[in-house]
């Protein structure tokens, strides 16, 4: 087939359509957040008529309209391409966005004017080819060309979606999706997109403090080391969900050395055991004929994996079997088989599945995804039953870890699940323990980026970097190691996280002789087989991709 894109008819059709698009367009490009990265601008520039004959009044709508906390809708700019409603309907399986009225009066609206609820709502901002849907978090922050962006990884959950982090004057101003077909296919969830303003919090901690008074790093780390040294099991270490592989490796060195015997609790994790054999890749879900989802509300646990499941079901005809006590959003597929189990009995239900009609004649790959039922399930048993089922019916499993780097921390051996009560000293790396600080704690050191009530009790408070400043890598739930690229500089007195750990090691008497992150990555790769990918970090500045392709003068 030959498609002629430059025939006079095609050229004129494009120009005509673009002229129509601009008949009622407000042309407020100078104050539009999309200006500069707007396909309507680009296409009009490239394909439109050079002069305008539109001099009548334009259609007006009340604007802008908040569609939700995070998204604003400008109906005058909307070109009614129906991408947003189609995305909602076909990809997200939500019915929240629709069209009102008809003809030229048509407008996009949320169902019954209620705020959008979906955790996938933010993608319509990226999808919208004009500035009709804009982020309220970023609104009027800057022109797109005033920012620089770096290709990084979302730090909010274990899916590891690829994102672009946009920086302007040392502030993180925007997070957008970056397509990686193996993982996210260009979608990110609202947590990843909008949950970043803490990075720019003016009250961010910048200097170390001892008992509330400013101190030097050397003094602070010396105090920490005296406070936690030789405490054995009386020392508790709280780790955050987004600890990097490099930090995890350094912690492992500390735990094998001076901090031997300390109790470690990693927060936000599922407590799923380490995978026994190779697990399923996210992209493998596309080919699955039957997908079994056990003890996980994927929409909140692993949002973008949830979209993959939906795609497999609606576009590729996969059948879904859900084992979960409550309703989940995958039930919107009328063919979903939902087995409502009593909490704690998921493993038993999984064992019953082995003789299920669908699994016996699946006609293709079978994927078995399991979560932890928010702690209600007996994890080892569930993991084993899923693995057994996979072996019995010839499928593969995917443990749905929740914490960003849970899988990496498990591989590094620091993903502890120890109770912290009864400890005397606490090293809180990241946000304070969710269960509160045990009353028995006599000495507390915290590494955190925000002042919080819990941190006021800390004897030593160390200023932390955020995901937008941190170097390092995450291992996502399927085991892929991906590298962070910080868009924001670490300005002294702030220190890189690995630097803090290296110096803490020195204060504790352990020589961690690293001058930079690459050396840590090389050592980690050699020490931990699952992190072998760390030996080849990508170049920090990827080559810019051309925006326009094709001849310069059509």
């Amino acid at each position, binding site marked *: 087939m030959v498609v002629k894109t430059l025939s006079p*008819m095609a050229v*004129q*059709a494009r120009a*005509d*359509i673009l*002229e*129509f*698009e601009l*008949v*009622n367009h407000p042309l407020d490009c100078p104050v539009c957040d999309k200006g500069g990265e707007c396909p309507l601008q680009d296409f009009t520039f490239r394909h439109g008529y050079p002069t305008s*004959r539109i001099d*009548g*009044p*334009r*259609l*007006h*709508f*009340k604007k*802008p309209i*908040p569609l939700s906390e995070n998204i*604003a809708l400008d*109906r005058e700019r909307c*070109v*009614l391409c*129906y991408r947003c409603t189609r995305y909602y309907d076909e990809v997200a399986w939500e019915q929240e966005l*629709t*069209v*009102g*009225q*008809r*003809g*030229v*009066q*048509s*407008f996009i609206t949320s169902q019954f004017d209620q705020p959008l609820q979906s955790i996938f709502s933010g993608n319509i901002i990226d999808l919208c080819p004009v500035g009709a849907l804009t982020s*309220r978090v970023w*609104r009027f922050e800057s022109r797109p060309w005033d920012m620089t962006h770096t290709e990084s990884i979302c730090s909010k959950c274990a899916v590891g979606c690829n994102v672009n982090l946009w920086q302007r004057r040392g502030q993180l101003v925007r997070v957008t999706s970056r397509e990686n077909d193996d993982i996210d296919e260009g979608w990110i969830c609202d947590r990843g997109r909008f949950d970043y303003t803490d990075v720019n919090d003016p009250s961010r901690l910048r200097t170390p403090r001892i008992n509330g008074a400013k101190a030097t790093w050397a003094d602070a780390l010396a105090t920490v080391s005296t406070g936690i040294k030789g405490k054995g099991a009386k020392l508790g270490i709280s780790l955050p969900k987004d600890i990097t592989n490099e930090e995890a490796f350094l912690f492992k060195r500390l735990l094998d050395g001076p901090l031997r015997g300390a109790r470690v609790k990693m927060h936000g994790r599922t407590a799923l055991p380490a995978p026994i054999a190779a697990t399923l890749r996210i992209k493998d879900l596309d080919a699955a004929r039957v997908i079994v989802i056990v003890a996980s509300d994927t929409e909140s646990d692993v949002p973008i994996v949830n979209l993959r499941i939906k795609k497999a079901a609606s576009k590729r005809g996969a059948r879904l079997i859900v084992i979960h006590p409550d309703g989940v959003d995958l039930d919107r597929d009328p063919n979903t088989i939902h087995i409502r189990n009593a909490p704690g009995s998921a493993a038993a239900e999984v064992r019953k599945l082995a003789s299920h009609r669908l699994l016996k004649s699946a006609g293709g790959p079978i994927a078995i995804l399991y979560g932890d039922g928010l702690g209600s399930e007996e994890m080892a048993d569930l993991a084993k039953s899923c693995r057994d089922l996979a072996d019995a019916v010839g499928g593969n499993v995917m443990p749905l870890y929740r914490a960003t780097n849970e899988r990496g921390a498990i591989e590094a051996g620091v993903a502890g699940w120890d109770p912290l009560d009864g400890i005397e000293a606490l090293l809180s790396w990241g946000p304070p323990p969710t269960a509160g600080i045990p009353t028995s704690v006599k000495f507390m050191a915290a590494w955190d980026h925000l002042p919080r009530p819990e941190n006021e009790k800390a004897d030593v408070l160390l200023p932390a970097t955020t995901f937008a400043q941190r170097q390092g890598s995450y291992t996502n739930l399927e085991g892929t190691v991906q590298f962070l690229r910080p868009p924001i500089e670490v300005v002294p007195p702030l220190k890189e996280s690995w630097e803090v750990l290296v110096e803490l090691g020195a204060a504790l008497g352990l020589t961690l002789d690293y001058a930079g992150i690459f050396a840590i990555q090389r050592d980690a790769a050699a020490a931990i087989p699952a992190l072998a990918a760390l030996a080849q970090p990508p170049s920090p500045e990827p080559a810019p991709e051309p925006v326009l392709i094709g001849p310069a003068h059509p």
Partner: protein
Amino acid sequence: MAELRGSFGEARNHLLTRWFGTEDLHRLDVYESKAGGYTALRKALLDMKPAELVNEVKTSGLRGRGGAGFATGVKWSFINRDAPGPKYVVVNADESEPGTSKDRYIMENSPHMLLEGIMIAAYAVGANQAWVYIRGEYDGPHRMLVEAIAEARAKGYLGPKPMGVNYPLDIQLYRGHGAYICGEETALLESLEGKRAQPRSRPPFPAVKGAWGRPTLLNNVETLSTVPWIINNGGAAYVKFGTEKSPGTRLMSVSGNVRKPGVYEVELGQTFRHVIMELAGGPPDGRELKVFWPGGSSAPVLPASMLDTHTDMEALAAARSMGGSGGVIVMDDSHCVVKAAARLLRFYAHESCGKCTPCRVGSDWAVRTFDRILANEGSQVELGILERVADGLQNGRCLCGLGDSAGWVIDSTFRHFREEYEDHALRHTRARWWSRRPSSSASRSRSSATTTSSTRSAPAVSAWSSSPRDRRAHRQAARRRSPKEWW
């Protein structure tokens, strides 16, 4: 029984309307005893195989009467009768085309003829369930169909074993919601499914994926009402009427400036002179015929000089028009073509579903341009805009025929009545400097004209806040709102 306006009684070309006018024809017993009703269904169910039915319709050369004129037998054969799962028949009784009332004529006079046709079609394509999507405003025809279906159910023609044959049949009625676009086949299916009536992109065609994703046969009321005659008399007998490529007869609803408006059954191939001047009596005394729409408002217009055009689809295509829905709209010389075109464009702009850019924006832009021309503010620029819009609406730039139709209105009136447009746009204009002065009465009246036109077409939601008063109110409201409220 209401007075019949149109064809009825015995005549060579009265295939459909032969028994119209018979007392109580809408009753099942009368339809059976006097009009020989349901013999075709009996023949189809008892003596013929589904494939034979399809072949008979193919032989007849019957073409769809809904608008596009697609060969009906071919459409039937697209449905794979042996595919597993349900299949449906959907009857397009939405008849919203301006100037068309032939389906109503059938449903009001002989509802059982339609039901019989539906049942035969359902049997032929392997469907057990049929829907009649009937225009919401058609109260009378709806009532008559309700009664007719009840009668057919009582008699057992609709039910588990019609005529004793083990082939369950049922017909349901579904009332439309008052939008022209609901007549477009895929929008109709969306509406039938309970969604917003917006056309789907094709392929897949309804014959493959129609109502609720199932294979669906979609036909017009008149098309299906012709089927019983074809089954009774054979496809070969049908071909004897009409022309070679457009066999048979069709109902033409003649309206406008004629002495005897009504629905006339016409053998295809007759001239429009016969239809308009003889059957409908021509324009009133002292008036000359000026222009007519040969196939509903969607068909490009023809001037009086082309009265001798034949009614078959090939002749109409050669005259750069089309047979469409068979609605003949006649205007005499008391009318202004530009105003008529403007009125029609307003209809299309109002009825556009809003899916495609050219139709959604272009039709509205044309309305505003017409408004300016009619307010004597036209110029060569306005004419150029109209031509560009007309061009932008046609040739597959839109998803459904509504956009094309809107383009054809401009295009065909331009083709035949360019003089009149130029009179309006170039010679009736006020001096440009006067009309363009910002606060002149002329420009104020222009914007208020726009306001009324758009409020008339859609009262509820958005407003053209282009008048100074609107704008002032808008500003005040914005000031009252604290900026914090939203941001």
